[in-house]
């Protein structure tokens, strides 16, 4: 037994003894955790230098948050799915279907609290369908199930609405997406308000951060992404956890629908078209691994912010949206390449 201890002691010295002394290696974990935030700060600085009068103005900053509000919900949902080494292509369609159901229920004259709850419930059910399909129908990969539901949900949304926009909601329904929290009591001007959607993002992201990092279910979600057979062998009901994850992803898309209803005051057929790709891009930029088990809620938030700021800044500078596409694509590739390099340095080979 004793020599066993000695053996591993020696290994430890050989492999790590030298490395531990350098500051560079000590910094790696911090860089791994907060590197993406560094990129975000750099982007903000660059945008500020390019647009000193406008970019950091109250109006523009709140505008960025309002613009990313519903995307951030989809990205968070997709992130959880990606942590399990899955994928959800249907979030944009779930959001559109939930939005259409909301619009129809609102037009039918339902009281506002029903109208508010309906998209959340609809989103949850859509996610549940994805989860059940992946587990009980034993689809070979979540890509296939959610590719199917991407068409099914959007088609259903068009069927029930006749493919035409439905507009006009009450203020209560629009509150989360359009509401303003007055800050004049802080001595600020009337135009310097806090968008309710910003508070909502903060609350939802905090709740899911706690869920993923401190709850037992959250830990199991990471374990499934790390090694599904290990999770199964540990007695974790992998299918149940996957169903929970896809349902929550649908639920978050439902929140996205509610926010979008508030922002646009309308349910329209093209809502959330291709937004699943934006959501995936935000997760990847934020450091989530497609192979599962890796990534943080903070990283996803940074990913969403980076995409939002890039779009906003380029719009301010009147750069064509075609260039925006090229730039966002380049950032995805660059962010992942930086991640590859970092992993080369960071982990043991």
């Amino acid at each position: 037994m004793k020599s066993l201890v000695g053996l591993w002691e020696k290994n430890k010295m050989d492999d790590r003894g030298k490395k531990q002394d350098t500051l560079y290696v000590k910094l790696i974990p911090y860089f791994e955790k907060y590197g993406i935030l560094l990129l975000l700060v750099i982007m903000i600085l660059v945008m500020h230098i390019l647009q000193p009068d406008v970019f950091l103005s109250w109006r523009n900053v709140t505008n960025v948050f309002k613009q990313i509000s519903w995307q951030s919900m989809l990205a968070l949902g997709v992130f959880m799915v990606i942590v399990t080494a899955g994928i959800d292509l249907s979030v944009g369609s779930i959001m559109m279907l939930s939005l259409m159901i909301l619009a129809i229920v609102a037009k039918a004259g339902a009281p506002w609290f029903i109208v508010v709850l309906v998209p959340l419930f609809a989103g949850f059910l859509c996610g549940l369908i994805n989860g059940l399909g992946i587990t009980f129908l034993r689809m070979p990969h979540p890509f296939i199930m959610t590719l199917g539901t991407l068409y099914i949900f959007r088609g259903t949304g068009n069927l029930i609405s006749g493919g035409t926009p439905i507009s006009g909601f009450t203020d209560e329904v629009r509150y989360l997406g359009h509401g303003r929290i007055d800050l004049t009591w802080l001595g600020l001007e009337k135009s310097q308000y806090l968008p309710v959607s910003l508070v909502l993002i903060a609350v939802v992201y905090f709740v899911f951060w706690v869920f993923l990092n401190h709850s037992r279910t959250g830990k199991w979600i990471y374990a499934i992404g790390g090694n599904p057979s290990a999770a199964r062998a540990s007695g974790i009901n992998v299918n149940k956890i996957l169903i929970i994850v896809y349902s929550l992803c649908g639920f978050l898309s439902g929140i996205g629908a509610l926010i979008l209803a508030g922002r646009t005051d309308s349910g329209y057929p093209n809502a959330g078209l291709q937004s699943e790709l934006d959501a995936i891009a935000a997760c990847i930029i934020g450091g989530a691994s497609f192979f599962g088990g890796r990534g943080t809620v903070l990283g996803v938030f940074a990913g969403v912010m980076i995409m939002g700021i890039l779009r906003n800044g380029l719009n301010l500078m009147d750069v064509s949206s075609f260039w925006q596409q090229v730039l966002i694509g380049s950032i995805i590739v660059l962010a992942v390449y930086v991640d590859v390099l970092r992993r080369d340095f960071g982990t043991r080979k």
Partner: protein
Amino acid sequence: MTSTNKLLLEAKGITKYFGTITALENVNLKVHEGECLGVVGDNGAGKSTLMKVLSGLYKPSAGALFFEGKEHVLDSPKDSQNLGLEMVYQDLALAGNLPIGENIFLGREPTKNIGFLKFLDFKKIQEMTSAHLEKLKINVKSADQKVEELSGGQRQAVAIARSTAFNAKVVIMDEPTAALAIKEVGKVLDLINKLKSTGVGVIVISHRMDDIFTVCDRVMALFQGTNFAESQLDKTSRDEVIGWIMGKK
């Protein structure tokens, strides 16, 4: 160290079909307290399938499992864990992205409950991990180290630590030395002897005659999914056991 000890685990007439394939047919197995049973057999002889049946991962098509004399139906690995039956898998069944402590307690994490919400008790995980690694004399930098940063031997040690963290009565090990450097094999075999001395029943599946003849008290051979031969270790020889693996008596 023989059949006079208390019988812990007994499998009677285990049969398992996968579609039209018969993986196991009428297989019997017994393990006593403090005894090490070696299970040998060629690839495809049904060793791994048998172990997965014992751990509750597969449901047998026919046959019954008795634990300490009582019949049990295992619906999942959780059921076998609750009985005190643990498995150390060949692929180690560890999640590389999680720290050592969280791997050891994966699926059975100590929690602080607030209503129906179960929050992980990280402090307790850390304390229990340190205490348990200390008990088994396993040395790692810290319980917070991610498993993917460990060497093969360290990972095997974590896997064995994992299997014994909850007062296991029977530990099943699938090729426990297959992925290890020669130097580390002896240490793992020491660990197995240590488990035996504390009254744990151990089942070792191995291709290595050295392993079998170092730690086992009894050896049984599977051939094409059936019980082929069985003997106390001191009444057989390496050549005979190798013959059994190839289906010769």
